[in-house]
């Protein structure tokens, strides 16, 4: 059974994900059963129209757990920070 404190999470949003969500960073308490990045996205989509729009096509959104690129299926067990953003366009 997961530690309750592990559900405290910092979420970060960048570029158009940030603009649609309406904020760049927030601290959230994730509900029970949210175990993967994909689960987080599913939960976020129900939090309001901005979130629904930002994650309407989840395949366009990339994620990083504790500043490391991950796939949607990645576990968030032990994570402190999850970031969501479009494909990068630097360089």
């Amino acid at each position, binding site marked *: 059974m997961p530690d309750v404190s592990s559900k405290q999470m910092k979420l*970060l949003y*960048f*570029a*158009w994900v940030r603009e649609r969500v309406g904020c760049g960073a927030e601290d959230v308490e994730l509900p029970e059963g949210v175990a993967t990045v994909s689960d987080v996205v599913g939960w976020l989509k129900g939090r309001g129209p901005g979130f629904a729009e930002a994650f309407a096509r989840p395949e366009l959104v990339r994620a*990083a757990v504790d*500043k*490391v*690129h991950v796939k949607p299926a990645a576990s968030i067990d032990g994570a402190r920070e999850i*970031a969501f*953003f*479009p*494909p*990068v*366009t*630097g*360089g």
Partner: protein
Amino acid sequence: MIRVQTEDFDIGAEVKALTSGRTDIGALVTFTGLVRDSNGGTVASMELEHYPGMTEKELSRIEAEANERWPLQASLIIHRVGKLSPGDNIVLVVTASAHRQAAFDAASFLMDYLKTRAPFWKREETGDKSHWVDARESDGEAAAKWDT
């Protein structure tokens, strides 16, 4: 060495700092990415957003990987963030090696990886409109070719 900064960089000064007093470098390659007015005079400015902390982590990882793959005497990545104008420098990559092939390949690799992995996002301002630059599929393909 990696740096994320709002200020411009000076290619000549950066190269001098890397090579000064050394006699083991035979080949040095620099790549500079600049803000290009891709719309023919209509792009007024560009805003570069990034993910502080992850950016440095990714750039360091990419640089370390280049140094594992090629025998480099020196390497440097500088990426600017914030507001930039057409013609401004965006990114500088420098690689130095004994021979030219390693320096060329490592610089090309660094750019390909940076383009697909470093958390930067560009927004172009055109007149009173702005839009986020789309990722290019060709960048993903360019990075994938190093996996073989």
